[in-house]
């Protein structure tokens, strides 16, 4: 029982990352009709926002400490972050400690800008082009983005820990009457889940309750008609692209403490996020979110030892098995609309 509860938590947590990425992907696809293979790269850039903020905050000046030696036997160069000298070591260190939450604020304008540049500079030329061309150009862009990141940050993962206050884990088991340690879950992952829920809710609310959102939703359903109404839908779509990029970036920035960011993390998520979107049904926002959580949960359950004993290797392929079963049972995924991306 406790094991199952644990995997439910895991499923929610994994699912929230999948859902966030898939949500952005679907927004772009639904509004612009563009298959964006660079979406994983946006997620990765988000995570590197956290890395960058951490580096900026710990920007240091160098003093020579004659009492110590470095690995070559020369006097040790000691780096002291400017923040620590400005605000005192305690406050300075805690500001650096909070770099990931600070990066969230920093990330939103950056991602909006990245999204804007991408859409205006490149993607808009591909609205009328075949999906294959869109795939090729966005895939090329994804490679370029990740190679640039690799060039400046290296290929190794870069640790970006969560603030001290969010470290460690929370014992649910005790609350529910289990033994201590039966159901523990890391605090930051719970924060991630809550944060995702808020973002997803915000995106839905934005589309549901604002005029802007209504127009975009109408445009997703029937672009031409909305265009005929004399509404400048293109401008709104540009903004939507920025929002989708921001959602991916936020998913990335919050993910940084969970797994140290590296330059290829976007590609690792790319295939998976497409599977999520398609299982959810092309063009369906609720479908993407639902599929994200569903696949996250199933992936977690399949990694339980009891399940693996029964079906060896099932955790390797569960996502794909589920995708195949759902697509065969439901032609357009869970909630897909007819005629979207079926040609």
């Amino acid at each position: 029982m406790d094991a199952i509860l644990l995997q439910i938590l895991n499923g929610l947590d994994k699912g929230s990352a999948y859902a966030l990425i898939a949500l952005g992907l679907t927004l772009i696809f639904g509004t612009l009709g563009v298959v964006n293979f660079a979406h994983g790269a946006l997620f990765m850039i988000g995570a590197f926002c956290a890395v960058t903020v951490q580096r900026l905050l710990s920007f240091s000046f160098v003093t020579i400490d004659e009492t110590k030696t470095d690995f070559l036997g020369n006097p040790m160069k000691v780096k002291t972050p400017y923040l620590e000298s400005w605000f005192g070591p305690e406050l300075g260190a805690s500001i650096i400690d909070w770099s990931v939450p600070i990066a969230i604020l920093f990330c939103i304008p950056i991602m909006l800008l990245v999204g804007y540049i991408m859409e205006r500079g490149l993607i808009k030329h591909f609205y009328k082009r075949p999906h294959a061309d869109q795939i090729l150009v966005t895939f090329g862009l994804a490679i370029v983005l990740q190679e640039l990141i690799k060039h400046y940050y290296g290929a190794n993962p870069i640790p970006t820990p969560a603030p001290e206050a969010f470290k460690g884990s929370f014992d649910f088991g005790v609350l529910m009457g289990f033994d201590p340690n039966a159901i523990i879950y890391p605090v930051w992952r719970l924060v991630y889940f809550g944060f995702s829920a808020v973002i997803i809710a915000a995106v839905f609310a934005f589309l549901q309750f604002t005029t802007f959102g209504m127009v975009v939703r109408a445009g997703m359903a029937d672009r031409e008609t909305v265009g005929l109404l004399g509404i400048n839908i293109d401008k709104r779509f540009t903004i939507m692209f920025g929002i989708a990029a921001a959602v991916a970036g936020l998913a990335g920035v919050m993910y940084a403490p969970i797994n140290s960011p590296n330059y290829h993390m976007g590609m690792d998520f790319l295939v998976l996020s497409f599977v999520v979107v398609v299982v959810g049904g092309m063009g369906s926002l609720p479908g993407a979110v639902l599929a994200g959580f569903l696949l996250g949960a199933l992936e977690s359950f399949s990694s339980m030892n009891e399940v693996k004993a029964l079906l060896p290797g099932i955790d390797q392929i569960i996502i794909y098995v589920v995708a195949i079963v759902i697509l065969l049972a439901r032609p357009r995924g869970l909630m897909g609309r007819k005629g979207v991306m079926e040609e």
Partner: protein
Amino acid sequence: MFNMEKRDKKLLIIIAVLALLAPFALNPFPTDSAMAQFNAGYPDLMQRFVIFGIFAIGFNILFGLTGYLSFGHAAFLGVGSYSAVWMFKLLSMNVVPAIFLSVIVAGLFSLVVGYISLRRSGIYFSILTLALAEMSFRLAYSVLTPITNGETGLQVYTNDPQILMGPDSPTVTHLFGLEMRSSYTLDIAGWSFDFAVGYYLSAIIMVAAFYLSIRIFRSPFGLMLRAVKSNQQRMNYTGLNTRPYALAAFVISGMYAGLAGGLLASMDPLAGAERMQWTASGEVVLMTILGGAGTLIGPIVGAGFIKYFENIFSKINNSVLHEWFGFLPDGLENGVIWVLEHFVGSGWHLTLGLLFMLIVTFLPGGLVEGGQRIAKRLRRKGADDDDAPGNKTPAE
């Protein structure tokens, strides 16, 4: 002869001549010159050019003609390689049974995958193929290790049964005694040219595969495949069952992939699971789109383009750059090298990514269409052409 139209015959002859003379054509620079770095005329890379050419030609029969975008074709190539290596392990190092089995097994596997995937179309089809292929890769890497030798890759060991192996049989892959790796080197002045048995076997098979693909393109079946791409609704209401057409194209292209896999293993008897990964499937998609999907020659061009970058640009390192630009004043030299090192050596991915973007943005239709456009412009400059505007045949 060959039962083909004149322009197709011309194309086939060009390809055959190019394949024959590739050892010269790909080694244009003297071995000692600084440009020798760009020579691609060594057996392994030439073999890769033609083998991946076969893979892409086959993929184009599916994607270029029917429009079904498979993201799982590398699985068939991988299965072909595994079958071939198993033949080496069980029978002997002769490549004939290996290639034969690889085509058969890949055909059967693609029949199963195609049968399942073709129940859906569009991106749903793509994801189904992707899922099935990625499953194959992951299982091959882990649970199926007894069959695939997992991470290490399937290879031939001296204690394998090899029941047809005589005491004098070659221990390397061969065609009835003709070893794949044997080669002649021809040195003329500063130039050096390699002629390898393995390359010529692959090249002959590639030319044959290309010939077959021309025949398919020009056949009623090829017309039906293009009709599938154009309008399935009309197909159905014209009394034509689209499913078996698409499935046949899928299986044929799967067999091409198996052939390529079998040949890869024949040139180098090791089959690694990465051959089946989605990135490998993506690579053949990129080759085809980059060269020009639906054109006869495009896939070969695209395959050559990507393999060239992978093998030539990745080997240009800093010391090579320093040698090239050593004549510049130091500051300038370092500046130039600082810029260039982003794009070569470990930066070759960046170059490839940029080229993808540039080509697809400025040459929609791929390299072949780009070439055609340039050719047309040159011709138009010469004299006004008599090309009637409607005289365009779609699948050239």
